């Protein structure tokens, strides 16, 4: 085994275990912290796939922002931080079976895909950011998606303020 493969197996194991912990912990803050570990594992996987830009974006957005937001959201609700009670309900078994089914479906699907084991061509990786930039901004690329993303951010901002900030009118 090459060092890369060992690294992949270790991170895959850690992030899978952490993902299981996310859904099985009673304490919501613990669940959020395990989610951070899972997301970090995914970032390492992105590096191993030679997508460093996505890896750092994964850390920056998901760990640096989304995870913080989730922990904040948990702390917004009263007394959830020292939560007690079974995190599983009656549907846990059905859910587990459904997850197993989807997973085996994915295994079959990717197993039959010829490109799955193909290694990407070793190219000039230093140009990947430039390629990404060109793809995002070129008229025949994803420029519409680029601009729509800005609309989406606007929508999210207005929505967040509308939901979170209703007291402005009541006070006046």
């Amino acid at each position, binding site marked *: 085994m090459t060092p890369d493969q060992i*690294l992949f197996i270790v991170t895959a194991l850690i992030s899978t275990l952490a993902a299981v912990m996310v859904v099985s912990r009673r304490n919501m803050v613990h669940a959020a912290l395990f989610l951070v570990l899972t997301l970090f594992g995914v970032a390492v996987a992105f590096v191993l796939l030679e997508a460093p830009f996505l890896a750092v974006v994964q850390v920056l957005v998901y760990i640096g922002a989304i995870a913080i937001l989730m922990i904040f959201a948990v*702390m917004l609700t009263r007394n959830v931080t*020292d939560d007690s009670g079974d995190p599983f309900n009656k549907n846990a078994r059905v859910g587990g079976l459904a997850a197993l089914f989807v997973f085996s479906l994915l295994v079959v699907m990717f197993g039959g895909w010829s490109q799955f084991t193909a290694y990407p061509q070793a190219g000039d990786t230093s140009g990947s950011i430039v390629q990404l930039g*060109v793809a995002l*901004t070129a008229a025949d690329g994803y420029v519409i998606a680029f601009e729509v993303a800005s609309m989406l951010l606007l929508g999210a901002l207005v929505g*967040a303020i509308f939901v979170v900030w209703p007291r402005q009118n009541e006070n006046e």
Partner: protein
Amino acid sequence: MVTNLLTDYWPILVLLLVSLGFAGIAMGGGLLLGPRRSSARKQEAYESGMRAIGPGTRQMPVRFYLVAVLFILFDIEVIFFLPWAVVFRQYYENGLGAFILLEMLVFIVILLVGYAYAWKKGALEWE
């Protein structure tokens, strides 16, 4: 086989392990060398000498949440902007300068509308 790109990232992993080692040794040393005279009183939450009243955790004010939302939006904007910043000069070297500038201006102006809304709505105030 270790490829060209990944060799750039291995030192980061090694540095991560080395710094974890440093931190672990430092904390272990503190645990070993320091005295251990723990008592129930000492293990209480510190509140400037008073006995702690009420639970240690409390509900968070909602404005902190709003700050986090604002941060995420600008964070994502910056991430979209970075690849643009790297390539924009290629465009005007190819004579497409006006196009690429307009693209960016539309992107920022749409966000500025949201920013102005947040300001107007008082979401940036902190009383």
